[in-house]
């Protein structure tokens, strides 16, 4: 087992001298022009943990041949799903792409699909979008636009297989609320590089949950930027990496305005010799962002030998006038004492392991707020654990 924790917290710059990263997150290039981003070699700061060779076709500046099959729940009044031509799609994207995969996804997607919720519309039932890959290369561009004081839950589930790259733009107007759930339930050979960029208007609330269970390589890069005061973002993530899976979640919360709140909570379990997870959590509190309150957490549970969890929290603080800022990162072995305790009460090894892993994820699962998703997730986690048991038996 390899566990690395590259903690690079820059302590409150106004008070002390922490380790300062070479470059501020604020300086990262963004552009619709894919040529601005050379093909990654794996030595770049943001690609250094990624299996770039598996992503080759995603880095190729070529038209893509495949598509995803869309199945959408019935859309209530005030909700529209429309095709948007390329120029318009770019104009409505809240921020330019932050890497080559994302820029090429926009370039070759042939326009975007836009899910738009009209102002003051409160959608009670979750809006579900199922995306099924049928193989081949697919480039996607999706706009999620929540009008002023509108409120909705959107669950996007990816299944099947593809070599898929995408840019998802999330636009929350003033006082809007969105619960966005992204489920990566791909077949085991899928490759997925996605960028999610969110802009939060004044007093808006974004709750984003990412669940990554399937796929060979899944690399999701989520950015949330505050554009108005009083907004809040909660980003939750749950992943379970088996042998042969690379699951990478990068996050960037940009506190550019005062009085906003952010919470990032990601938890992962790893099992199997070549299971690899990466979590990079960047939070930037700019000089103007007084009264910021932020906390980010990543925890990894390593169930078997050979799995590798990289965890890199990174907090940059440019003002001392904040409410709170903190981060925690912990990666631990599966706790044998917990197993012994449960088993000493007659509970079998298999069942004890299920209880411990379910317990590890319990609080996160309850945060999703969509009962159907929570239930199916518990079942899928049990399946993942059953899979671990098989692997352990083969050892």
């Amino acid at each position: 087992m390899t566990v690395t924790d590259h903690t690079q917290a820059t302590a409150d710059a106004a008070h002390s001298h922490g380790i300062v990263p070479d470059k501020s997150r604020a300086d990262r290039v963004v552009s619709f022009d894919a040529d601005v981003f050379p093909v990654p070699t794996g030595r770049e700061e943001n690609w250094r943990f990624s299996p770039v060779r598996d992503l080759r076709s995603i880095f190729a500046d070529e038209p893509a041949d495949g598509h995803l099959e869309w199945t959408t729940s019935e859309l209530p009044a005030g909700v529209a799903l429309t095709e948007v031509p390329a120029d318009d799609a770019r104009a409505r994207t809240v921020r330019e792409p932050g890497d080559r995969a994302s820029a090429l996804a926009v370039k070759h997607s042939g326009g975007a699909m836009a899910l738009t919720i009209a102002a003051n519309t409160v959608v009670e039932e979750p809006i579900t979008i199922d995306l099924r890959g049928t193989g081949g290369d697919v480039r996607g561009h999706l706009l999620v636009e929540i009008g002023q004081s509108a409120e909705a839950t959107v669950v996007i589930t990816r299944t099947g297989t593809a070599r898929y790259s995408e840019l998802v733009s999330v636009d929350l107007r003033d006082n809007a609320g969105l619960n966005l759930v992204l489920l990566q339930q791909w077949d085991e050979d899928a490759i997925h590089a996605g960028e999610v960029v969110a802009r939060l208007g004044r007093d808006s609330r974004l709750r984003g949950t990412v669940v990554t269970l399937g796929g060979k390589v899944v690399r999701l890069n989520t950015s949330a930027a505050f554009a108005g005061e009083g907004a809040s973002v909660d980003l939750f993530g749950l992943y379970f990496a088996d042998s042969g899976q690379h699951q990478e979640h990068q996050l960037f919360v940009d506190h550019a305005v005062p009085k906003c709140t952010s919470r990032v909570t990601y938890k992962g379990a790893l099992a199997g010799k070549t299971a690899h997870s990466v979590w990079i959590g960047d939070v930037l509190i700019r000089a103007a962002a007084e009264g910021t309150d932020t906390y980010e957490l990543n925890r990894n549970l390593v169930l078997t030998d050979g799995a590798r969890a990289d965890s890199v929290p990174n907090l940059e603080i440019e003002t001392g006038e904040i409410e709170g800022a903190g981060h925690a990162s912990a990666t631990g072995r599966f706790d044998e004492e917990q197993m012994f305790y449960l088993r000493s009460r007659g509970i079998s090894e298999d069942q004890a392991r299920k209880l411990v892993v379910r317990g590890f994820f319990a609080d996160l699962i309850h945060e999703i707020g969509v009962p159907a998703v929570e239930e199916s997730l518990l079942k899928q986690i049990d399946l993942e654990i059953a899979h671990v048991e098989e692997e352990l038996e083969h050892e």
Partner: protein
Amino acid sequence: MSTLEIRNLHVTVETPEGTKEILKGVDLTINSGETHAIMGPNGSGKSTLAYSIAGHPKYTITEGSVTLDGEDVLEMSVDERAKAGLFLAMQYPVEVPGVSVSNFLRTAKTAIDGEAPKLRTWVKDVKGAMENLRMDPAFGERGVNEGFSGGEKKRHEILQMELLQPKISILDETDSGLDVDALRIVSEGVNRAKDTTGLGIMLITHYTRILRYIKPDFVHVFVAGRVAEQGGPELAERLEAEGYDRYLASA
């Protein structure tokens, strides 16, 4: 009627300095309905004895035997030992975050009995047992031992013992860290289990205080990995007055 029989038990642990023998030939027999107090200085191996009987993977049995009603306990897995009727109330109960107490208790009961308990009676049993131990019903929804105080953890151990109804129970310093009220409540729980199920008890303790509530039939002095002397309740009084110096000098 059950009998736990420990014969010439030798146990080692792996330390950075090499293998270390901790138990050096323990002999002890506990029958249903009997209470055996085990008293001895820190580090003498009392917890090691308790954990070895329960099957903790850290300990290696190098010699001797442990049987329950003639069945070889050492051949059993940890959960099989519990199903056979052994229970260990731990000195330091383990936190299992995210697993609710009620889910845990029901899962354990189902495992021990081999079938799920009848929901109605089970809910009533749990509620009653918690009331008896002055545990707030809200504990049912909390994570197992998660954020429990020392005393709450000990009550939770006894709660499990009352619900799982073992044949032989090992209580490892269940009295340590309890105030007088909590000590009385926990002791009542142990005595209830003894009265209703004829439980046999190995009671590991440093203090005679608990022996006023739970009357021992036998007292064993445990020194340097073996039983150095045995006697009746009067031996406990003498230990409290004189300490273990007499045994340590000769050990």
